């Protein structure tokens, strides 16, 4: 499973767009990029998954450049309730089964 590197923490204010970048230099051809969100004392919650270019859903956008060695999770107009830890995971290509979580990015949104 490819190792990922992301900032330990980020601060933002309500209404701003937040972009969290994750590096995954050793991503394999069949690996997907998946982002999870975790609130304190809760289970990780799936946000978005992509393979290349751009993916958008009702919660976020995921930008993946052509070389796929990094990805950026974009949260539009964050609110206080977006304060959480965000994890970037790489894998799930085919037989990859388990999820390997790093330390994630702790996003703090201020009023």
């Amino acid at each position, binding site marked *: 499973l490819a190792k990922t590197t992301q900032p330990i923490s980020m601060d933002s204010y309500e209404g701003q767009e937040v972009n969290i970048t994750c590096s995954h230099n050793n991503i394999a051809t069949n690996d*997907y990029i*998946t982002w999870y969100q*975790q609130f304190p*004392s*809760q*289970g*990780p*919650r*799936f946000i978005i*998954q992509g393979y290349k270019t751009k993916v958008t859903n009702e919660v976020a956008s995921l930008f993946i450049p052509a070389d796929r060695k990094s990805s950026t999770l974009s949260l539009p107009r964050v609110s206080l309730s977006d304060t959480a830890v965000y*994890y970037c995971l790489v894998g*799930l*290509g*085919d*037989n990859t*089964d*388990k*999820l*390997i*979580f*790093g*330390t*994630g990015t702790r996003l703090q949104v201020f009023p």
Partner: protein
Amino acid sequence: EPEVTQTPSHQVTQMGQEVILRCVPISNHLYFYWYRQILGQKVEFLVSFYNNEISEKSEIFDDQFSVERPDGSNFTLKIRSTKLEDSAMYFCASRSRAGETQYFGPGTRLLVL
């Protein structure tokens, strides 16, 4: 929206006691997982389960741990003789097929005294 559910939400036990943590995965899912998260640390994989057998387990998942799918809906994690260091949040997850997203339950907070 279908959810993974877990019971109990909290469990306090004495060291050396057996505990069983219960999970009800999403109904049409075929792959099941247990993870744990010690307070302030990363989420760690314990075990994956498919077709009524363990498909992968981590070093953490030693002989004190076992999993079972006793019926068509429940998926359990048993810790035979708990240790202080087993205190953690335990998360169950499930997915429908290979490559699909894993969905996590709300967790069981286990405290071993």
